[in-house]
């Protein structure tokens, strides 16, 4: 059953990975947060699909120095 939908699932997975990875790279390079710490944000970004990276980029990310 899953095979039937695989061609449709791949672009979705790729996009989610792009979001999660760009958030992960950004947070590892900057390591400044409005609240929470590095460990919490890594978990959020990697394990909350779609919502995690959104939260990180909108409210979690600290000021760029």
């Amino acid at each position: 059953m899953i095979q039937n939908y695989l061609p449709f699932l791949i672009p979705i997975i790729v996009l989610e990975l792009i979001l999660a990875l760009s958030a992960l790279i950004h947070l590892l390079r900057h390591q400044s947060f409005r609240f929470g710490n590095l460990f919490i944000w890594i978990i959020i970004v990697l394990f909350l699909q779609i919502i995690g990276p959104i939260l990180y980029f909108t409210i979690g990310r600290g000021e760029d120095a």
Partner: protein
Amino acid sequence: MNGFTAFFKKEWLEAIRNYRVLLLFSVSALFGMMSPLTAKMMPDILANVKVEGMVLKIPNPTFTDAFVQFFNNFSQMGMALLLLVFGGVLSQDLVRGTLIIPLSKGLSRHAVILAKYTAALTLWTSSYALAALIHYGYTLYLFRLVSVKHLFFSLFCLWLFGAFLLAVLLTASVIVRGSYGGLFVTVAGLGILLICQTIFRMERFNPLRLASENMALLSDKAAFDPLLTIAWITAGFILAALILAMAIFKKKSI
């Protein structure tokens, strides 16, 4: 190049560097792809979580079910995303004081408001259009085409509601201080609209209907004319909000 175009370009550059463009476009594309797929896979998903002794009868998903998913996603998660992404659109500039220099160099205050709104609106429009196009393509491929009434108008209503949210957000950010003041006021305003709609049944002029009756419109359960009136009223609200924002911003000390 006048002040408006310069500031408009700066806003887009900021949106790209702040990952706003990445977030909006990728999440829109995700919604566009996921909605028809969720509708299509729903019977299989439900079949897997079958509970002993319970028979689930699920009708085969149709063309309109895909749109149910799309409107569900966009009227809830999509609007929340829009508010989060544009939450600090003017407040951040005011808090950090980054507007002081361009304004003292002669940039018109009206241009700031207009450019901010146009930049946010173009970003929202393009991401929504991307989502709608992807969604429509997937839906056409996965489902048999059924002619539905007012499809474009229904999509337009949700877009207009997004534009309305942006205008309210901008005006609230002009009025209220603090980096997230505008966001809180807008969310509170949405709550008031919701209370008006559900408890006091004030439905005739409520912009919230633009985001809640899309499916009813498609399945012909909601009438076209009242919603068209609301669409015009909402357009009026947007215009009024922008004029109010410009008038207050003109007098505001920064």
